[in-house]
């Protein structure tokens, strides 16, 4: 019987399978950042060890960095100490660091792909759940905890139990105004925030084939929001064209050799998945979430579920609690509701293509006076491209504020927070209680839907202003 894409890569990286236990899985590339690595460095140092394979480890500072005045010392003492600890640890262990001020600095899941570090067939880990992003290149990439970061430091391996496999086939043409963020929010709304727990998901089908690499990354990025260990897409010409010529991509003869190998990375026709889902792309509308987990999403023109009619008691209580936090009403539409903030950024939607799509939509328009709009490019390279392409002029003329690269208001570890009780339509990945600041109310949506709200000041069906 044939093998799945996942099996092909996983099996090739198993050093040893423990009887009745996990596998010793070899890791090709380990990304680290300032927040989840310091305790792991301390751990190996306590054992008198050095990082085993520093050349396969790449560091950046992204989670708690300010997005204003990055050339100045970080004001927040704890954030500064964490970033300084990363610098010191990388020095002590000979690890390449794209820290603050470096032209390659940025959100770890943005810089890996744009530098060509992320390549098909690799195993990739990082102490961050959105590591699934890299799966868009046909990699087995997943988030790990700090103890596992320490394992990779010590041995370039992690102990992992092989997950089950799920394939999600998405076929058909997308409606106007519907983009990859809507696809993944739609899938999560169908199968819930835990619907893929225990699985590694492969996204396939004609709709996926038609997407750019940036759009594919958005989908793989949010795999974790339905509980999946990771998400992946078989590499194809779109992948190879994206990679070719990037800083760390292979060149010349090596490129040809690698490409031949990458072309074998697909699920065989007779490969068996533990679960298969089919999605009709033409049924997907622009999506928005109304609740406090990414599974609580609806089509922009739909109504919030009527809680009285939800049969499952646990789910009903869950949604009632979410609506109470969000200050929203059961059975109501969100269209026309005022928002105070628009956040365009995060490892989900801060790439150049996302920002181009926003600029194209708002060109010549101005933001509504009642909203504050913040655009945070995913990396220094994206920020440079924004300038080169003149997008910054479009944004400033519209009254959008452009910040410097980082995770920013996606998780509010730095100063970029949404005040308690206020609404933020956000292109990020999580709408958990307090995620964007204590008491903040997050509505997840695509960059287009977020930009539409920036212009009108209220939740808007983007199809009406395209």
């Amino acid at each position, binding site marked *: 019987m044939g093998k799945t894409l996942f099996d092909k890569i996983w099996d090739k990286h198993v050093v040893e399978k423990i009887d009745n236990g996990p596998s010793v899985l070899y890791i090709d590339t380990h990304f680290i950042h300032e927040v989840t690595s310091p305790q792991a460095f301390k751990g190996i140092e306590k054992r008198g060890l050095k990082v085993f394979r520093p050349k396969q480890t790449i560091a950046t500072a992204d989670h708690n960095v300010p997005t204003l005045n990055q050339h100045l010392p970080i004001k927040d003492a704890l954030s500064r100490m964490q970033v300084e600890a990363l610098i010191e640890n990388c020095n002590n262990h000979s690890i390449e660091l794209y820290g603050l001020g470096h032209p390659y600095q940025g959100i770890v899941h943005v810089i890996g792909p744009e530098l060509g570090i992320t390549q098909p067939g690799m195993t990739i880990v990082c102490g961050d759940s959105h590591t699934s992003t890299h799966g868009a290149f046909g990699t087995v990439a997943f988030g790990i905890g700090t103890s596992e970061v320490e394992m990779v430091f010590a041995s370039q391996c992690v*102990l992992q139990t092989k997950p089950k496999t799920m394939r999600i086939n998405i076929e058909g043409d997308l409606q106007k105004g519907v983009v990859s963020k809507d696809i993944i929010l739609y899938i999560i709304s169908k199968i819930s925030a835990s619907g893929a727990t225990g699985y590694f998901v492969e996204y396939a089908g004609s709709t996926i084939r038609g997407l750019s690499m940036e759009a594919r990354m958005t989908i793989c990025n949010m795999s974790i929001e339905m509980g999946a260990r990771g998400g992946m897409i078989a590499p194809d010409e779109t992948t190879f064209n994206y990679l070719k010529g990037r800083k760390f991509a292979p060149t010349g003869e090596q490129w040809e050799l690698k490409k031949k190998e990458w072309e074998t990375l697909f699920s065989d026709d007779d490969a068996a998945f533990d679960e298969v889902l089919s999605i009709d792309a033409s049924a997907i509308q622009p999506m928005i979430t109304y609740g406090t987990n990414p599974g609580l999403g609806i089509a922009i023109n739909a109504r919030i579920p009527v809680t009285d009619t939800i049969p499952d008691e646990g789910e009903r209580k869950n949604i009632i609690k979410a609506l109470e936090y969000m200050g929203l009403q059961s059975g109501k539409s969100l269209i026309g509701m005022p928002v105070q903030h628009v956040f365009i950024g995060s490892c989900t939607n801060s790439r150049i293509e996302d920002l181009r799509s926003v600029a194209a939509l708002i060109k010549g328009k101005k933001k509504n006076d009642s909203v504050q709009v913040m655009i945070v490019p995913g990396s220094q390279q994206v920020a440079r491209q924004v300038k080169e392409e003149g997008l910054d002029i479009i944004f400033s003329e519209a009254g959008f504020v452009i910040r410097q690269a980082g995770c920013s208001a996606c998780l509010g570890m730095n100063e970029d927070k949404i005040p308690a009780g206020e609404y933020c339509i956000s292109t990020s990945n999580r709408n958990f209680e307090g995620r964007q600041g204590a008491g903040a109310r997050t509505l997840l949506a695509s960059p287009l839907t977020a930009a539409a709200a920036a212009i009108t000041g209220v939740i808007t069906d983007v199809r009406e202003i395209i």
Partner: protein
Amino acid sequence: MKALSKINSSIVPLPIENVDTDQIIPARFLKATTRDGFGKNLFRDWRYEQDDETKPKLNFILNQPEYSGEILVAGKNFGCGSSREHAAWAIVDYGFKAVVSSFFADIFKNNALNNGLLPVTVSENFLQSIFILSNTSTLSIDIEEQTITIDQIKQTEKFELNPYKKTCLLNGYDDIDFLLSKRTAIENFEKELS
């Protein structure tokens, strides 16, 4: 890691589904460079009004003195969201030795096990029975036997535990020592891969 074989304790019930790691430990508390001291900020924003320790939210379970113990019991999909191991550290630091739920998020489950915190997955019915008896019954957990018992009604359920992880918990073994013992195999593997 300390060895762990049996837990017998009263419980702290949290009958809420999809408890995410941002609730367990909000991101603003992730700026430490050590593993210690996260317990005081466990469930911070559910526990205190306006982030103020002098203003406990009295309806939140951790602020109710009649509930205490080494076992946290929560609704399904516990620990979803961010991979932050700080969530497991906060629960351990607060004094819990086990978390019981009908469903755990993957990364959280691994993080818990890597810190000697036992995640026990029970059926939805069993979970509801625990909640109903939460202020009168203790729970007994036996790792060797892989059983959990609601002591008051003597109802027992078996739970799954990876045999490798079971050995680690029972003996306080450490994954890193295990991986270090495999370095030669890893180096040979690297030679074959290249």
